[in-house]
């Protein structure tokens, strides 16, 4: 690993200022803890990706194909033609700087190349050099850079330090979306076989088995049955959780972490309780056993491939519409891309809640709605019997996950649900929530163990706001509706704000939901004693 140990005479040096260098200098250092591992060849070859090979970012020689330059420039040319937005983003930035200090990676690191404007400039400078007249004539003077192998390494370093969260775009007067530029940068890198493992292996798994973890149908079935047992222990009610049931009204697709991960699982129990209580005619699928779509972090093509399987399953099972679980980037795909890449889903019907009769017009084309919308509608119509006091052990704050908040505007529904299921809900400061929410720092495929320090940097602004409500209101739970968040916020909290648990929205719904015929509840979804029931459990 490229970790530098200073010689003794350097240690005694008083001036520790980093060397002043121009942003145009592409040199980067891959320090342990700040980058992602390269993809394993078994995954890249499974997906038929080009130049599958064993490599690591710390290698001096990245074994680029001989015609790498040509591949990149042609790839850029194709994309400029295909995506008008990319061409516009390349041309119209006036470098006003409004976005500069809005990126959580910049805020946490102070590294100028994490300013969104400079992140985009990494690609734009090459565009300028090779695709604009001024750049062709003036080169460096016009802000152009000649493409070099160093620049490829720099791209890899910084395009995998962007969680594609789109916070910066909220502040750009021209609506430039740096996340889209990052996506293009990653697509270009992938053309050279520079994929990262945490994106490619889950995508390969999903392509093979239907979920990122590679769980096979019998494993999925086991997991669901296990949850049904657990829920029975807590509530005394044995629910049905149909799998691959043809002709069900609704196909329910959750992120796979929901049935494996801690704390996701407690929210999964909440879903099962809720859907049983309202008597929804639904089914899981062992083949569409993943709501997430790591293809989104790879390329438009991969996103399309993985998204298609959900709709093919809906068709095969003959359902009317699709309900999706608590996931973040799944909704970026559904709301912003699905319709263009695989839609419209004409063989399905516009989602209508059979319980309330509400027609979800906004999903008229994709035929898919988020469970937070569905549950909020149930509560609004008074269809649920809720006992808020069963969440009195929690003092809750809500993290707006980037994609549900910024990509689909799901801002009010989760708050409405929270206010209906618990007595103690406190907002974080205004400039850190809703559209301005700070990312968890680990999205878009960056949530790996090897990238831990970078994640802690990127997550600092979020954690800092949680710390504030912990100090002000004794908050002890950070609730969210995204599977990546549920995996990556617990370590973030453990490092920056010890004492905060992370929980799913439907975990709290499950706690509060009074089910017909339930036994006296003594524990919550975590199997911890409910407030006031501690003695009963101990006895």
């Amino acid at each position, binding site marked *: 690993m490229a970790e*530098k*140990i*200073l010689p003794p005479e350097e*240690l005694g040096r*008083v001036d*520790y*200022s*980093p060397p*002043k260098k121009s*942003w145009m200098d592409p040199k980067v250092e891959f*320090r342990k*803890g*700040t980058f992602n591992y390269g993809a394993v060849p078994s995954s890249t070859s499974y997906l038929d990706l080009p130049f599958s090979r064993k490599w690591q970012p710390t290698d001096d020689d990245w074994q680029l194909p001989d015609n790498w330059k040509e591949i990149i420039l042609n790839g850029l040319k194709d994309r400029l033609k295909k995506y008008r937005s990319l061409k516009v983003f390349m041309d119209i930035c006036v470098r006003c700087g409004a976005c*500069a*200090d809005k990126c959580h990676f*910049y*805020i*946490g*690191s*102070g*590294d*100028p190349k994490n*300013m969104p404007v400079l992140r985009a400039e990494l690609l734009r400078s090459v565009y300028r050099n090779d695709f604009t007249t001024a750049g062709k004539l003036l080169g460096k003077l016009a802000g152009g850079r000649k493409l070099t192998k160093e620049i490829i390494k720099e791209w890899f370093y910084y395009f995998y330090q962007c969680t594609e969260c789109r916070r910066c775009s909220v502040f750009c007067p021209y609506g430039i979306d740096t996340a889209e530029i990052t996506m293009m940068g990653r697509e270009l890198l992938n053309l050279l076989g520079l994929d990262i493992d945490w994106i490619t292996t889950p995508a390969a798994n999903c392509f093979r088995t239907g979920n990122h973890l590679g769980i096979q149908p019998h494993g999925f079935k*086991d*997991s669901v049955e*296990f949850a049904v047992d657990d829920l029975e222990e807590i509530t005394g009610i044995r629910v049905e959780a149909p799998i691959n049931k043809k002709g069900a009204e609704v196909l329910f697709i959750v992120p796979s972490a929901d*049935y*494996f*991960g*801690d*704390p996701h*699982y407690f929210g999964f129990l909440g879903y099962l309780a809720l859907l049983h209580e309202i008597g929804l005619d639904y089914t899981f699928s062992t083949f569409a056993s993943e709501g997430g779509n790591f293809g989104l972090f790879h390329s438009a093509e991969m996103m399309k491939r993985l998204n298609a399987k959900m709709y093919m399953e809906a068709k095969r099972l003959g359902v009317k519409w699709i309900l999706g679980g608590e996931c973040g980037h799944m909704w970026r795909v559904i709301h912003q891309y699905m319709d263009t890449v695989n839609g419209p889903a004409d063989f399905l019907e516009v989602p209508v809640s059979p319980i309330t009769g509400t027609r979800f017009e906004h999903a008229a084309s994709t035929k898919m709605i988020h469970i937070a919308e569905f549950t909020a509608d149930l509560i609004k119509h008074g269809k649920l019997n809720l006992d808020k006091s069963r969440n009195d052990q929690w003092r809750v704050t809500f993290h707006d996950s980037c994609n549900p908040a910024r990509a689909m505007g799901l801002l009010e529904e989760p708050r409405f649900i929270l206010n209906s299921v618990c007595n103690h809900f406190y907002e974080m*400061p205004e*400039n*850190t929530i809703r559209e301005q929410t700070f990312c968890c720092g680990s999205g878009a495929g960056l949530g790996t*163990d090897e990238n*831990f*320090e970078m994640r*802690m*940097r990127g997550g*600092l*602004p979020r954690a*800092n*706001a949680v710390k*504030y409500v912990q100090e002000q209101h004794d908050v002890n739970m950070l609730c969210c509706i995204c599977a990546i968040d549920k*995996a990556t916020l*617990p*370590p973030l909290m*453990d*490092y*920056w704000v010890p004492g905060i648990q992370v929980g799913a929205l439907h975990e709290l719904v499950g706690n509060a939901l009074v089910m017909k015929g339930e036994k006296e509840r003594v524990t919550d979804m975590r199997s911890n004693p409910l407030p006031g029931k501690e003695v009963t459990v101990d006895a």
Partner: protein
Amino acid sequence: MLTEFLQREQAAIVDTWVDLIISGYPAQSSHFLKEESDRFRNPVGFTIGSEANKLFAALVDNNDESRLRASIDSIIKIRTVQDFTAAQAVHFIFLLKDALRKTLSEKGKEEVPIDELLAFESRVDRLALLAFDSYMHCRDRINEIRIQEMKRKSRFLLKRLHIQEESIWQEG
């Protein structure tokens, strides 16, 4: 008396100290880190500024370690995960000496007895040792948290296989 000077010039000394700390970050970011006063928009700059002030006051009052420790921890926690080596992460403490000498040469009207100055500098050195402890603690925490993260990912898988988690992962 040194103490009088330190109390009178606290603002100037701390300001110079913070400037020196921030000059350890890339030049293009110093303005933001120094000037953005919203604690939520600029947690790094805000923490350095406010904790440096507290540290200095506690040092002048010759407070016990516990009061110093909280402020040291807040700054070190940040620097541990930034682009610094261990030496660079704790080095900011020694910059206080530079800040003090600079302010003394610019604003010190009175004679400052050398033994008082040396005594104060020794306190700064002790602070550096605390910072090193704090840095090591943060590194340890990172390793513990990484292990816990792995455990969380597979918790319900192991439970399903009827494997007692503790038999595989000894709690640290």
